[in-house]
């Protein structure tokens, strides 16, 4: 574990150095290739005047809402599909149709139906998260060994008990990896939706921050936005998901 972070640190330093040297070499104009000093100054400035913090909070709050709604919906749909053959057919068809469809492709429709406010972004996020989650959950449910279901029968568990005591815990590793995919996809969907919609100023999130910096020709600012996105992505991946894994599947001995 330690080793992984040390390696990362080394490589990040090397890349940063490489970046800075390229910037200093004057090979590219600093309009195209700003140095790290400029980028961090832009980041500090935005953090200081409070706009960026508000925008990060806005983006995160939309993502969390979207993830919770999508996770709940996916759980219900996947469970229904597990217990009913007809529902399984329908949900399978829906997933097959909608899963390969990028949320951005639906943008014109969403604009007309839901306007360009927060709801629209939320819908893009839910769309990009729901289908991979259902797929993962269904795979998880269906790959539970038969012994488990037979044990449930032995103990005469009813459906509800079976669901909560066996089905969901047994497929938890799939659920977590589904959540990881969902997180990455929702993050991408959010940023692109915000950049495309040009959300209302007062409501703008990180995507809007980058768009605004771009419009005002502030490349260090654009990079500052990108750094924030990377930082949040890594933090969530390394700490929140790691914690979730150690407290559940690792503790239960399902994952090494």
């Amino acid at each position: 574990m330690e080793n992984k972070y040390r390696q990362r640190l080394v490589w990040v330093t090397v890349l940063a150095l490489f970046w800075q040297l390229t910037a200093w070499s004057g090979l590219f104009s600093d309009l195209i290739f700003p140095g790290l000093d400029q980028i961090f100054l832009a980041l500090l400035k935005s953090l200081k005047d409070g706009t960026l913090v508000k925008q990060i909070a806005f983006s995160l709050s939309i993502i969390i809402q979207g993830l919770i709604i999508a996770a709940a919906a996916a759980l219900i749909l996947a469970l229904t599909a597990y217990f009913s053959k007809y529902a399984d057919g329908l949900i399978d068809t829906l997933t097959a149709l909608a899963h390969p469809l990028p949320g951005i492709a639906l943008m014109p429709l969403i604009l007309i139906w839901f306007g360009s406010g927060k709801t629209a972004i939320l819908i893009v996020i839910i769309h990009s998260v729901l289908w991979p989650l259902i797929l993962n959950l269904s795979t998880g449910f269906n790959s539970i060994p038969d012994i488990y279901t037979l044990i449930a029968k032995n103990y005469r568990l009813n459906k509800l008990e079976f669901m909560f005591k066996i089905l969901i815990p047994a497929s938890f590793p799939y659920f977590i990896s589904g959540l990881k995919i969902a997180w990455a996809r929702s993050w991408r969907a959010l940023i692109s939706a915000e950049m495309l919609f040009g959300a209302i100023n007062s409501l703008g999130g990180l995507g809007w921050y980058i768009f605004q910096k771009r419009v005002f020709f502030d490349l260090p600012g654009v990079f500052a936005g990108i750094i924030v996105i990377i930082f949040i992505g890594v933090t969530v991946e390394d700490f929140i998901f790691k914690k979730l894994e150690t407290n559940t599947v690792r503790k239960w001995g399902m994952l090494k």
Partner: protein
Amino acid sequence: MKKYILIIVMLFLIIFLASACDIQDYAADQTKLTIAEQYGLAYAPVQLIKELSLLEKADPSLEVEWKQLSNTTAIREAMLAGEVDIAFMAIPPFLIARDKGMKWKIISGLSESPLGLMTNREYINSLADFKAEDRIALPQPGSIQHILLSMAVERDFAEVNKFDDQLLTMNHPDAMNALLAGREVSAHFASPPYLFLESKEKGIKKILSGKEAFGGEFTFIVGVSTEEFYQQQSKNYKVFLEALTEALNFINQQPQAADILADNYNLTAAEMKEYLNWPGMEFTSKIKGLEEFLAFMTAEGYLKENNYQRSELIFTEELVTEKKETVLEGAEQDGK
């Protein structure tokens, strides 16, 4: 550790080699001219250059590429990357990039145009009537429409950001559709032909014109180019300037300009004629309002530095204004 160093050195080499090749390519390319075009009536003389092949006629060896880019920001970025030599845009986006250090200048004016803040709400008759939930659609922050709105707001309410939380970034076609749908968007700062189309709709009215917002006449679109292009390809620069002057003359003097352009704009010749002669549509190389934009944008913090000299922003004004006078003389003679 040795391995790391080796990798770094190799990466460096690759980058240097790649960029060296690129630089040579650009310098050698004297026979190609790339022009960015955008949709809009204010760009009519540029479309005329294209339709009449004025550049190819002036210099048959010249290879002209027309690049369609969706918005001013994309054009700016393409120019910075060296993919576009000449582009057309409003003065504020030009100034913003100039202020950030982009090495470019104005070649010439292109057009003046009526602009208008159109609303579909009955209760809105002036800027003061906007409620907090009314949304105003604009191309983007920092666009001429945004700056004009800020100018009007600053004059009326002495607070320049009054409506900044109510702005909605939309391109003109989307904004027009939203305005006609009448739900989310209450107002649209439109340019032609969208302005003309909207003003023909029932229930949509103009509450502020560009001229009122600016407090006078101003150039809507200017032609811009990089200093690198101006210095390294001065021959092509001259060819282009002559073609532009010819196109401006043509559109001002020859009635068949409307017929030639109608197809290009997907309009009937009659509509095209009506639009080209709409009050306030002027095609002239004169640059008006540069100082006012500069002063306002500096005062409101859109620009950092001030006291730019005109010569720092415009390539060769003498040539342009000289040409302009001959244009006018020509027009007068024709009139007689």
